Structure formats: C-alpha cells, structure tokens
C-alpha cells in the first residue's frame, strides 16, 4: 500500500484522461434534464457512466442507486437461442469486459462488492460477475456520513472503509489524500503518474475527516451483528416476527437500492418466432411470487415471513455461510421505503431482544 495526493483539478483531469483513453468511467453524477424525476425531488444524484469529467458530482450527497447495477445489472442476457428445425443454436454471452474505473465510490457501495464476491464465487464461479469485477478499478471517496440513517460502522464497514476498493480518496485541503490499496490501484496511479503528487501536507486533515465521519455515523445505531446473528439462529419462530412487517408493502424498493441484495430471476424472452434471449433479472424475497411453486404452493405465506427472510438472509444466513453480514449500512432501504420500514429500528429491537432473551425458542434453526 502506498500513499499519494490528488488535487481536485487533477481528479477532474484524471477522469478526462481516462475518458480520452476510452476507459469507461462510472461516477456519482447529478442528472438534470431529461432526467427530471418527480417535479419536487430536485436533481437526482446517481452513479452512472459519465461522458465528461464535469458531470461528476462527488459531493452532492449519496447516490440514489448503489454500485450493484454495474456488476449485476438489473437485467442482462445469459444466452441467446435460435431454433433451426429440430436443432437449437445457442450463443454464449461475453464474460470479459472492457476496463473501467469507478471514481468516487461510497465505501458502503464498494464493501458490497467484496461481500458479494463470496456468494458469486463459492463453488460455481459467476463469470459475468467476476468478469466485471476484474475489469473494474474502484476508487473510493471517504464519506462524511450522509444522515441519521447511516450505520456502516455497525456492520463492519465505515465511512472510510476500503473493503472492495482499489484506492481510497480522503478529502484534505484542496484535494484528496490517497491510499493506494491494490495492484489495480497501483496500475492506475502508474498509468497517470503526472496527476498524482507527493504527500506533503494534508495527512492530519484527512485523519480528522475520517474521525469526524466515524463519530457522526457511530451515533446512529448501537447494535452488534454477532449478537443479533446469535439470536436469529435460535429464533426463527418468535412473536417479534408476527407484527414486524404490517406496514411493509411487499415491493422491492429496498432490494432495488440495496448494494448487497443479489437475488435474481431467470427468464426466457422470445424475440420473433425462432429466437430469443435468456435473461437474468433482479428479483426479491419481498414479493409473494418469489417462492411460489408451479403447483401454487407458497412456503412463505405472508409479508411478515417474507420480511423475516430479508433480515435472516442479511444477518444470519449470509454471515453463517460467508462470514460477512449482507449489509453495508448505507441506509438506502430506510430512505426509500414507502411504508416507513426502518432497518435501524429493526436492528435496534433485535439487539434488545438478543440482550434479554438468550435461550432459543421452539422452531430453532
């Protein structure tokens, strides 16, 4: 790991160099027309592929989407087929990708990439995921802490976390104090050596920024994922679940904005009479359709148990399987939920239960 410095204007320059060289650049950007959004919502900040360095809006607030869609798109082809008499011709999809750089990733978004590497790589390796992972250099920007719904520090990340990142920028002075973390990060610096400068000052300032951000986020939620996982392991059945999700609408808004929700559907879509595309699409355990069998039997009968699955998968199943909490504490789910479901509240309640009820109840998994 090495250290270097990048001025604000050199960051813009770096983006420009990359774009000129034909590298795809993904960054938080502020969308004006034609992306108007609801008339009241103001400009939308979201990660997207930028065409000009000036489109970057690194300090405009948390992007509405997560980085997930650039690695697991909301829809993507898995293969194409074409019928020829009795035969079928299959066309494979490309699993190697052009190099690209994410500039200004939030640490809660890069962390998700590292977390999801586990499920995408265990036993069967998802080449579409890893193809994109390998092609992408992720440059994090330390976050000042967005609002009172951030809880990254509770789930093993932090506003300056480097999980899933190749480089970390920490605001300092007229630019960024830079930590180069991986060979991919080194390669980026080497290729654009002239943009980076020696660290002369700013280390203390960066340190201060990190400390303040952590303190800000730390205030939001006091819970221990380990303790909660322990409680969840023994309490698949518990009155807590029975009224948990009364206000939940069973939509997939939380999963759509979640950096770690990765469940998907696979569908065939004919195009014309003979051919078509098999696609993988985002899906979510929050819909009633998710688990329904062709026979009509549905093992998850109502929204309470579907929401339980969401909590279980993130805070018990995934940690049990992959030693990571399937949550980066970005708080987006609570920000978008139309029914006011609040993951911070749920975790705080679970923390309390875990503190008071140590013994497993009936139906323990």
């Amino acid at each position, binding site marked *: 790991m090495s250290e270097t410095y990048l001025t604000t204007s050199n960051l813009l320059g770096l983006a420009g160099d990359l774009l000129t060289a034909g590298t795809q650049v993904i960054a938080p950007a502020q969308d004006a027309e034609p992306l108007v959004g609801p008339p009241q919502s103001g400009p939308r900040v979201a990660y997207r592929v930028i065409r000009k360095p000036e489109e970057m809006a690194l300090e405009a607030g948390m992007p509405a989407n997560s980085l997930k869609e650039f690695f697991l798109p909301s829809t993507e082809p*898995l*293969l194409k*087929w074409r*019928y020829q008499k*009795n*035969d*079928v011709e*299959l066309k*494979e*999809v490309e*699993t190697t990708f052009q190099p690209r750089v994410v500039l200004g990733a939030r640490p809660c978004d890069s962390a998700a990439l590292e977390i999801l590497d586990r*499920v*995408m790589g*265990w*036993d*069967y*390796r*998802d*080449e*579409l995921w890893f193809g994109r992972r390998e092609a992408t250099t992720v440059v994090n920007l330390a976050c000042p802490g967005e609002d009172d719904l951030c809880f990254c520090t509770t789930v093993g990340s932090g506003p300056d976390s480097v999980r899933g990142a190749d480089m970390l920028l920490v605001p300092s002075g007229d630019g960024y104090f830079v930590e180069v973390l991986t060979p991919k990060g080194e390669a980026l610096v080497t290729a654009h050596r002239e943009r980076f400068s020696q660290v002369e000052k700013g280390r203390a300032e960066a340190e201060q920024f990190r400390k303040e951000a952590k303190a800000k986020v730390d205030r939001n939620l006091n819970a221990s994922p380990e303790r909660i996982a322990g409680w969840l*392991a023994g309490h*698949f*059945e518990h009155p807590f679940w029975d009224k948990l999700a009364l206000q939940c609408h069973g939509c997939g808004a939380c999963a759509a904005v979640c950096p770690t929700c*990765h*469940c*998907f*559907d*696979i*569908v*065939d879509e*004919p195009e014309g009479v003979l051919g*078509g595309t*098999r696609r*993988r699409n985002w*899906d979510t*355990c929050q819909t009633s359709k*998710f*688990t*329904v*069998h*062709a*026979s009509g039997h549905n*093992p*998850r009968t109502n929204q309470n*148990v579907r929401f339980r*699955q969401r909590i*279980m*998968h993130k805070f*018990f*199943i995934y940690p*049990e*399987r992959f030693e990571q909490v399937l949550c980066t504490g970005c708080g987006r789910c609570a920000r978008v939920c139309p029914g006011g479901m609040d993951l911070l509240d749920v975790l705080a309640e679970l923390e309390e239960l875990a503190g008071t009820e140590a013994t497993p109840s009936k*139906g*323990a*998994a």
Partner: protein
Amino acid sequence: MNIYQPHLARVEELVEETPDTRTLRLTFKDPRVAEQFTFKAGQFAEYSVFGAGECTFCIASPPTRRDYVECSFKTVGKVTTALRGVNVGDTIGLRGPYGNWFPLDQMSGKNVVFIAGGIGLAPVRCVIWNVLDEREKYKDVTIIYGARSVSDLVYKRELEQWAGRSDVKLWQTVDPGGETPEWKGEIGFVPTIVEKAAPSAKDTFAVVCGPPIMIKFTLPVLQKLGFPDENIYTTLENRMKCGLGKCGRCNIGPVYVCKDGPVFTAAQLKALPAEY
C-alpha cells in the same frame, strides 16, 4: 463456458406415464459432454425449453446407465407445459448435475426401503435402479409405492418388472376410491401401507419421497417401526432458478436447498424451519 450455459440434448424417447406426467429420455448432442457427464443418484438438473425457460427436476434415470439421462415431470407451470409440447427428435437444454445425493455407499450392505407417492417416485426410481443395477451390494430391497388412482401410477412398466423380481418386495397401493375393478394391489394411503408392510428398521435405510402430506404422515410410522431419523432420507423440492447457490430463492433458514440438498435426512428436516 459460463455456469448458466446449458448443454443441448436430444429427446430420444417419450413415455406418457399418466394423463399429466411424462418421461423424456435425453442424449447429449455433444459427444464430449455425453462422455463426461456424470452424476449421483438424487442430484437434479435445470432443463430448458428455449422460449419458455428453465425448470428443476431430479435426474430420474440411474447413474449406472451412462447412455442417456431421463426426467419425469408433471405439467403444472409454464415450462412444464412447454416441455409437454416437445417431441422425439427435438432439442432441449440441460445443465447440471447439481446438489447432493443419496449416500449409496452407506446403504451398501444394508436393507433399503423405498417409499414413494405419485410423481415422487421419480427421484426414488433413480436410486432404485442404481441399487438394482448393483443388486449384490445391498441386502433386502422393499418398494412401497402409491398414487391417488391407478391412472396416476407412474413407471407402470417398471412396476411390473419390479413385481416380477424375486429380489424385490413391491407393495403397490392407490388411495381409497382410486382403484379399478382389475386392481390387484393394496387400497389405502401410503403411510397405512407402510405400517402394514412393517419393514424391519434393523440395518435399514429408508428413502421417502412424495407429496408433503404423505411425508408428514409416513415419518411417524417409520419412527414407530424403529427407524432413526438419521436413516430416513428424502428430497426437497423448492422453487429454484439458478441451482448454483446464487439466486437466493431456495433458502430454508440457513440452508440452500440447491447446494445442501435436495437430499436431506429426516433429522435434518426436523431442524429446518417449516418453510418448504
């Protein structure tokens, strides 16, 4: 080849098992795949009808027969309806095998009791033929099979073959009211017939497959007969998409049915939340 890419397979033969159940015999189009494709009894695959999608069934033929792969399916949803439309000579897709399998090495040298209901005979049939193809490795083989009615019994030709074998004890039954005047088998629900057949639990493994209600009432009978939960095996069918432990659909508590299953012991099932 990426993990979602199926092999192409030709439909060689199709058998109408019941008015809504069919068996397909498939061979791989690519000879190298045919050469390399191996699996174990109990594993499943994803079958594609291009344009309709993929569906999940166990491989119904035994691994001891290497020339083909068979699957049996009931027409219920979109893909199985499309699968019903395929004819001999048509091409479908198959990827797999996935999941775990029945522990045949443990069963070797022991008695095996097979208990199945309806289309639940498909995964069991795979094990039955595997055992019968290596008959000398096992002691007593008992098969208890039932369906709602005579016309709902699947693998009728094979039931006749098993009935004719002296090294197999076969009990066939149909639910009360499902019999025909010619019916010579038992009349009664599967758990009742298990009680009547009363296989000895000593040195015996049970393989149970069928509708949830049948399993629910069969397990206590086996328990009464002295079968420990660890010696009772079944397979779970959950809705799956990827079969690869990624898409998140088949979770039951901490279990990925596609990876940790589909074969479970009754002991394992009892530890799972009732979400299947």
